[in-house]
């Protein structure tokens, strides 16, 4: 049986005064983690808020579990775990009071799972949320998100502002979640090293457009950084570059297809593997220059 994508976006548009999503598409299947990267203001949070129907779309289609995200909103949200970049819980309440308010909303709330995460994350039930550190608040969000048998985790910059230790802990937990092949994780970040560790797919957004969306391994296998002298540059060669940095000694550029550049330039150039950071920077810089 062919499974429907757990999340599918087609032609999604949203207009603001000074910014807009220009008809974006993306697709995430069950069993995978997709990292959603892009510079600040690229449209990551807007996309996530549209998926959650916090913002109203101007056009396009969002399907979650194969169903329209507005028509089946309640049913869908029952199976979504969400973690936002900032705390949106009532700071005046204690951890257990907040849980007590949220839990009854979910048909499939699993108290045993919640208690397991409370112990694992060493969350103090009697403490007020405002007394928790940023890392603890995120862990609390995560404990709620993981305690109602959610199939899709949607996270908006969950790692921002966290120290490296907690970040790495979070990434381990996400890897754990995805052991269940029925589940998927969609998370935005501007820290590309988060993706190096756990993402199966990478989607890059810039100025409200999806610049690339593909398997991380395909990206890392095909993209290359090339370095060489300026004498080999001409307009034909420049066309195969995603982006280029030039200085008086030579150039450094990013290409999408290592084989193409090898056949064209052979041993005149030096070739290196890029990081996801390089790929994001070259892509967004090119768009800025365009």
């Amino acid at each position: 049986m062919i499974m429907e994508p757990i999340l599918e976006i087609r032609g999604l548009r949203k207009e603001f005064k000074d910014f807009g999503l220009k008809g974006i598409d993306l697709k995430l299947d069950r069993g995978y983690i997709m990292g959603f990267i892009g510079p600040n203001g690229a449209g990551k949070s807007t996309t996530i808020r549209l998926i959650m129907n916090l913002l109203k779309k101007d056009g396009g289609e969002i399907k979650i579990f194969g169903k329209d995200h507005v028509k089946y909103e309640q049913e869908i949200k029952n199976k979504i775990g969400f973690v936002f970049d900032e705390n949106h819980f009532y700071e005046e309440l204690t951890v257990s009071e907040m849980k007590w308010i949220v839990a009854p909303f979910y048909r499939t709330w699993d108290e045993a799972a919640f208690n397991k995460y409370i112990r694992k994350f060493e969350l103090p039930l009697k403490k007020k949320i405002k007394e928790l550190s940023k890392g603890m608040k995120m862990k609390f969000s995560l404990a709620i998100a993981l305690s109602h048998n959610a199939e899709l985790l949607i996270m908006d910059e969950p790692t921002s502002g966290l120290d490296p230790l907690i970040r790495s802990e979070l990434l381990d937990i996400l890897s754990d979640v995805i052991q269940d092949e029925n589940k998927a994780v969609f998370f935005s970040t501007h820290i590309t090293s988060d993706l190096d560790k756990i993402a199966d797919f990478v989607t890059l957004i810039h100025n409200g457009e999806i610049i690339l969306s593909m398997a991380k391994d395909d990206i890392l296998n095909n993209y290359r950084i090339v370095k060489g002298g300026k004498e080999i540059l001409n307009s034909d060669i420049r066309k195969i570059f995603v982006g280029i940095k030039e200085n008086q000694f030579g150039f450094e550029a990013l290409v999408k297809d290592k084989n193409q550049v090898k056949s064209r330039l052979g041993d005149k150039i030096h070739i290196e593997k890029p990081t996801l950071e390089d790929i994001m920077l070259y892509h967004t810089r090119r768009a800025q220059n365009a």
Partner: protein
Amino acid sequence: MLNLHLIMKDVLIQKKQIIFGFFYLLFIIFAFQNSDVGTFIIGITAFTYLVVTYSCASEEKNRADVMLNSLPVKRSQIVAMKYLSVVIFFLSGTLAYMLFTGLLKNSGFNIKIYMLTIEGFLAGFISVSLMTGIYFPIYFKVGYMKSRILNLILFFSIFTGVSYIAQYIQHMDNNALNKLLAGILASQSNFSIAVILLALTVIFQLISYGISVKIYNNREL
């Protein structure tokens, strides 16, 4: 299905404000002891104003709309719970008022006390309903911060307005309008007048709720 946990949330996030509100009520019983039915109207309106605005302020401070609307709950239910929480606050304030005035009456304090009557209860309910019924659609449209000043004006005009009218009706003179009014009122039993007023207030609340839902459904979070 209504989610009563959302109302309990309003109680939980402002335990302190509710207790402070009770003391405030006690203060008003002393400060406005010559206002007759106005004592209760002012007291209950001020009490409800205090807790309702605090709860709205807290939603905004915590940006709780984002969290609430990410849960499997309809926006209309979030709105409904706000309206229902007013009823809870109104009733708890009323009980506190009755308790305080009952205790004070038997305490031997030299103070003039207005003991709550059905008319007073109804007038208080109308006052509180008018205030929140006008306020909520504005709150759901623009949020707490932007509606603050308007809310304050609303609060003062309603509690002075309603208590003035209530006192006026109680001490009516004999001009033509009053005779007419009195005639209409006299032709009805007190019970049916109360029912009519209550029904009008409920209809007003339902209209206000409908507007709030429409506004909140289209709100971008």
